[in-house]
């Protein structure tokens, strides 16, 4: 999005494998301890969809970030769709549905 609207961003790399996303400095910005984080002056944003909309709106691109209620709702309903399949979930990679069955099996076994 920054490339699309010609906004320049300063990229700060956070190495999550070294635990850098959980440092007090990052947690103060995003209590979830997750990246990405967008800072613009004193504004701190997390969640990529919010950032994209903000960058587009700030650049005056109402074509990309529509302002009419209907268009905006359409964008909001769609912009989460594809991310679901690769977004972080349970720390152990567990599926909730399985655990009950497993406990049952352990009791009987």
């Amino acid at each position, binding site marked *: *999005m920054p*490339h*699309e609207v010609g906004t320049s961003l300063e*990229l700060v*790399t956070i*190495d*999550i*494998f*070294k*635990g850098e*996303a*959980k440092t007090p400095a990052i947690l103060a910005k995003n209590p979830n*301890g*997750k*990246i990405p984080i967008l800072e613009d002056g004193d504004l701190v944003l997390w969640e*990529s*969809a919010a950032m*994209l*909309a903000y960058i*587009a709106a700030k650049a005056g691109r109402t*074509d*990309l*970030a*529509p302002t009419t209620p209907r*268009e905006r709702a*359409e*964008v*909001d309903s*769609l*912009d*989460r*769709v*594809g*991310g*679901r*399949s*690769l*977004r*972080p*979930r*349970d*720390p*152990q*990679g*567990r*599926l909730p549905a*399985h*655990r009950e*069955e*497993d*406990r049952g*099996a*352990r009791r009987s*076994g």
Partner: protein
Amino acid sequence: MKRSCRSGVDEFTASAKVLEQSLGSKEYLCGRLTVADFDVAPYAALAESCGLDLAAYPKTAAWLARMLARDSMKATMAAASGAALKPFEALVEPHRALLRLHCYRMLGSSHDSDDMVQETLVRAFRAQDTLHDPASARAWLHRIATNVCLDELARRPAPRTRCASSGRPPTRIFRWAPRTPDSEWLEPVPSSWLQVPAPEGADPAAQYTLKESVALAFVAALQVLTPSQRAVLLLRDVVGLSAAETAEALACSVPSANSALHRARVTLEERVGAAGELVTGGGRCRSRAPRALRGAHGRRVISMPSSALLHEEGDARDAAEPPPGSRGRAAVAHFFTKRLLHAARAGRFRTSLVEANGNLAAGSTASATMGRDRSSRSRRSS
């Protein structure tokens, strides 16, 4: 071969279906280009680079190609592939071979273990911010892989009925379950799978060596354990996790994990003996077996049953879960001398020496002539 669907791939498929339907005849998700396209496209591109195929979703594939052709997306993806995927690949790659063996032990299937590893990596990618210390990546990945396998086992319609009698080994009154699809059979793995990076391969807390942990007899014995007992035993005695780590990985209490471990160890010892006694045969087996197999192509076949390929007690335990009628030394010998070698002499089978699961094995393959016979027969019958 794909018997069941799996969560990460499942969700990707669900998302792709939604995208496909949302796109309809539109060029972009909301008709014209909006921020929604920019939010979704990078994830769709990541799914593709994880090996998830978009070919079944032509509108989504065309939309993604349109998005990725934009200069702005090219710049974004170039930065992302360096920033997100490369470190992840570097993190997981050293563990891939071990994870494949772990999944193999959990499922007893070499075919399924590659699918399990892919699902493990998808889940790991999504959960990567939960790995706080890269030094514990091995344990972290094995925990995820264990849960992937447990989910797969829970999804299967029925447990391995043949192995339902956990605890005591089969007795004379034991009856094999009716013949089941090939998925129910324990599959061997090529010994090349054992070539894993050494430093990560050995854990001081592990009870079994790498070679023991993939011995057919061990993997076969594992399959009589319940999935959760198998998971606990592998995490503790093969991967080398602590009791607390194992309990955490399996979302149960430490006493409950310990009790499952105890039951699993008792069952395993009854079937294959204690850790350290598992891999037998060794050099003697190695030196004798080639002669026996050379005999297989000539006439001196009788030395076959006396070779160390068959277990001392005639239990054919190394033959994993043999088909009904081929259990025991005499039965295996009968199978080789009367059936397989007869076929080999007729030129329909070729038996060669291979390595499987770190041990010597005999592989029998149908010869090309036989294939031609078959096809000519089928042509005649059609």
